[in-house]
């Protein structure tokens, strides 16, 4: 043991030690670049004009905010943004309480048994395109086509199963013991749920809400098929930029950057609460 320690200590100063310490960083940097490059590229393009956008090696031409101005003036970017916001907020606001209740029922009462649990999961595994056509038919009949309400409902088919599946684990384990203590303390089932289970699972519920929002914000297929001119969301709008007259690469980059803002704004919260939520089991 002691000998080994000496060896590794000696190695830390030798050639092998340096390689050992540097190599992981090189690999990690390479991976980070792979992920970051497209984002950085988009950021650069969003501030340049159409002509310099494609230049390789990259060239800094006229730098300015013209693309950002353009997307608001020549395209209904504000409307896309607003639609996305309304749909994503709406779908999350409806999905979150329902998913919480569903997850609680799964965790506490094993409602529907394994069959229902797997059923909910299975609906997540279907390619979304399978759901789009029946939804299209039903929305036509119900007069929900091209409406934001319709889109909210469509997004629920994604977020409800996903969020409830994710939340089940937050209601299992220690929380059940705490609820038992509360029940003996005089709480009704509802009070135990409301005052113990929900606050204790709050980090998880919050994380689920944030994920649900992002899911809906980025959703493309349902929005493409089911939305109309006045209810188009960002992903659909961005796609339209690509197909107009060639690819409007510079405004597209600007639009992409703006549409990423809310997601990036949410990420720190998501990270914090997800980690807090997942380590909840460690609490005694």
């Amino acid at each position: 043991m002691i000998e080994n320690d000496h060896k590794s200590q000696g190695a830390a100063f030798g050639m092998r030690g340096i390689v050992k310490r540097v190599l992981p960083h090189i690999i990690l940097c390479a991976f980070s670049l792979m992920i970051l490059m497209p984002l950085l590229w988009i950021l650069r393009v969003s501030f340049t004009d159409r002509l310099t956008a494609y230049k390789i090696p990259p060239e800094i031409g006229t730098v300015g905010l013209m693309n950002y101005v353009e997307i608001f003036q020549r395209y209904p970017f504000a409307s896309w943004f607003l639609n996305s916001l309304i749909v994503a907020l709406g779908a999350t606001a409806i999905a979150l309480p329902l998913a919480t209740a569903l997850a609680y029922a799964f965790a506490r009462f094993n409602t529907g048994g394994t069959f229902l649990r797997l059923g909910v999961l299975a609906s997540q595994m279907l390619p979304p395109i399978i759901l789009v056509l029946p939804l299209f038919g039903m929305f036509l009949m119900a007069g929900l086509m091209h409406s934001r309400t319709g889109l909210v409902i469509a997004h629920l088919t994604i977020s409800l199963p996903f969020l409830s599946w994710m939340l089940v684990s937050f209601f299992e384990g220690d929380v059940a013991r705490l609820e038992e203590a509360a029940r003996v303390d005089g709480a009704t089932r509802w009070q135990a749920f409301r005052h113990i289970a929900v606050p204790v699972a709050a980090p998880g519920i919050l994380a689920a809400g944030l994920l649900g929002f992002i899911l809906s914000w980025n959703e493309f297929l349902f929005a493409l098929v089911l939305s109309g001119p006045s209810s188009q969301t960002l992903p659909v709008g961005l796609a339209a930029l690509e197909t107009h007259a060639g690819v409007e690469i510079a405004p597209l980059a600007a639009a992409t950057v703006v549409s990423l803002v809310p997601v990036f704004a949410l990420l720190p919260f998501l990270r914090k609460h997800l980690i807090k939520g997942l380590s909840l089991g460690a609490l005694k």
Partner: protein
Amino acid sequence: MASISLSNIHKLYPNGYAAVRDVSLDIRDGEFMILLGPSGCGKSTTLRMIAGLETISAGDLHIGGARVNDVDPADRDVAIVFQNYALYPHMTVADNLSFGLRLRNVERRIIEGRVATIAGMLGIGDLLARKPAQLSGGQRQRVALGRALVREPKAFLLDEPLSNLDAKLRASMRTELIKLHRTLGTTIVHVTHDQVEAMTMGERICIMKDGVIVQVGAPMEVYRNPVNTFVAGFLASPPMNLLHGMLDSDRISIGDVVLPLPQSLRRAFASHAGRKVIVGLRPEDFHLKADAAPVAAPIEVVSVTTEVLGPEVILVGTLKNSSAELHIRCPRDFRSEPGAMTVFNYDLSQLQLFDIETTTALMRPVKI
């Protein structure tokens, strides 16, 4: 305050496991009752059925005279302290303590008063603003106890509340719980698998095994007259030595060792003469002095090892020409080399015999 009565209670878990079978137990109003038994014998299950956290598969449960089988746990007005305390992690100590009272819409002023009283009583007054994560194990244990006390329930159900504490803290909490019971006089059902807790704390002990009650009685009664070898081998540490022997009309032979039966026991055991039996010899009934007991028989013990505990020495030894080990409680200055032989005087009046097949006690020679 209330009595708790279990009549023919069964618990069948959904997976078909019968955790508790035909348990009948009357716990008097204000009694300190101990549920004692090895791990998995159904102690927690029984306690959880009393609290209403498990459904009762069959039988009747009465609290304070009223049948409560189908009463919601919230309405049973009992308090439970769990082994892992189950404090609400998102609430301060004060909120943990007052949760039950707030649910009952008790007036703010009264709540604050009671929380302060209980916190003072348990010495957790300085911790009221903290969250459970910021407490030590002993402090959490006190908060859990306080949460039960503050509501002034009809009965306290304690599920191994001391088992997570270190030995010293456990000993002092043991004393405190006894004092608490004396002041409050509330019914307590205390689950434990620690026989010291059982002997020292309870007014009565209920010993369970494999989901059934084996014996119920006052600590000394259970200690003196164990109904079978399980109880004899479970109580006290070291427990009673159980050796195979042969019963004749006037003596018992354990291998080469022959113990003469005193006159009083001869008559009692007469009907079993000529049968193989299990002989129960308590470690504390062996004496070095010849005159320590009025009716004694010499027993030669070959030393295997000695455990020097400080206040006393436990001799682990074997009988002559036998491999069966036995433990003997000796005075603190006793020493013996391995292989050395010591002659002890065994107090024959304490002799216990058990049926070799059923393991039940042949008779109970001593009444207290």
